[in-house]
């Protein structure tokens, strides 16, 4: 501590260590947040159910969703990425998960909403297994904090069954 430069160096080092400490403390307190969110999804209409030219099944539908994600937000949350996955089982795969729709929520005030929207991404199968298939819809979320590790979670929602035959000519 003999010169001003040495003192400045010491101050910068201690300040950096304390900054890491308070960010770690903020991230640690996130673990005590037990979220209780509500969500509801309903398939309004199957817009298109066909078999593509390369042999895979494809489904496009309109969904009506309402969800309340405000309990996921803490003071240490930067944004929440939420997506809806369709899950089903086939002969070759025990679990197929296909994302139909996703959204990024950056503010707690906008975390509760209802939408009626066509799916962002079509449900495309690896094969032709979707006729008459029972599909479950699961809501997944990734919470991205300002400081800390990403937190994941999911919640199963309603199921629905696809029609037994293609709705449009393939």
């Amino acid at each position, binding site marked *: *501590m003999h010169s*001003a430069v040495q*003192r*400045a160096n010491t*101050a910068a080092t*201690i300040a950096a260590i*304390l*900054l890491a400490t308070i960010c770690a403390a903020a991230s640690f307190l996130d673990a005590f947040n037990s979220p209780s969110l509500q969500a509801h999804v309903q398939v309004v209409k199957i817009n298109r159910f066909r078999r593509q030219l390369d042999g895979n099944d494809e489904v496009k539908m309109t969904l009506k969703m309402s969800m309340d994600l405000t309990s996921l937000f803490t003071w240490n949350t930067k944004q929440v990425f939420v997506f809806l996955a369709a899950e089903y089982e086939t002969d070759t795969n025990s679990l197929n998960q296909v994302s139909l729709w996703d959204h990024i929520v950056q503010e707690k005030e906008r975390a509760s909403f209802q939408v009626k929207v066509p799916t962002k991404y079509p449900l495309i199968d690896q094969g032709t297994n979707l006729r008459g298939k029972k599909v479950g819809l699961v809501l997944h979320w990734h919470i991205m904090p300002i400081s800390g590790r990403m937190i994941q979670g999911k919640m199963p929602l309603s199921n629905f069954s696809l029609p037994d035959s293609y709705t449009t000519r393939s």
Partner: protein
Amino acid sequence: MAGMKQKYRTDLSLSLAVSQKDRNCSTQSYLCRGDSHVFPSSPVLKARINEMDWQGQKHAEMLMQIFLVFSAVAAFGAGYLMRDFRLMMLIYAGGVVLTVLVTVPNWPYFNRHPLKWLDPSEAEKHPKPQVSNITSSSSSKKKASKNK
């Protein structure tokens, strides 16, 4: 043994004594106040000792740690209570800047117990020993230890 100690102290003080020609009055430093004879003139020592005494350094270090820890705790508490991460960062940054302003520069408050260097008039009474004197004194030291 006492004689050896005295000679070593003289060596140190002589290397610190100021020559009258070495004056730089373009700055507001001790060199222009007329009491430059009580401060070191060797450029290496001048670069290292910047007018904060030992008591002041200890005080400055203690203040720095206390200020920084306090601003970290206050920032975290305020951010947690107000549920605002940005507020925590702002308070902490303000605390760090305040700490640097108080602790890093050589404020006169940290120089209340300045070091007293040896007066050159006193130093001249003890001339610097020659190289041959050092070897003879070291050999005499060896003889003294052998005799014990």
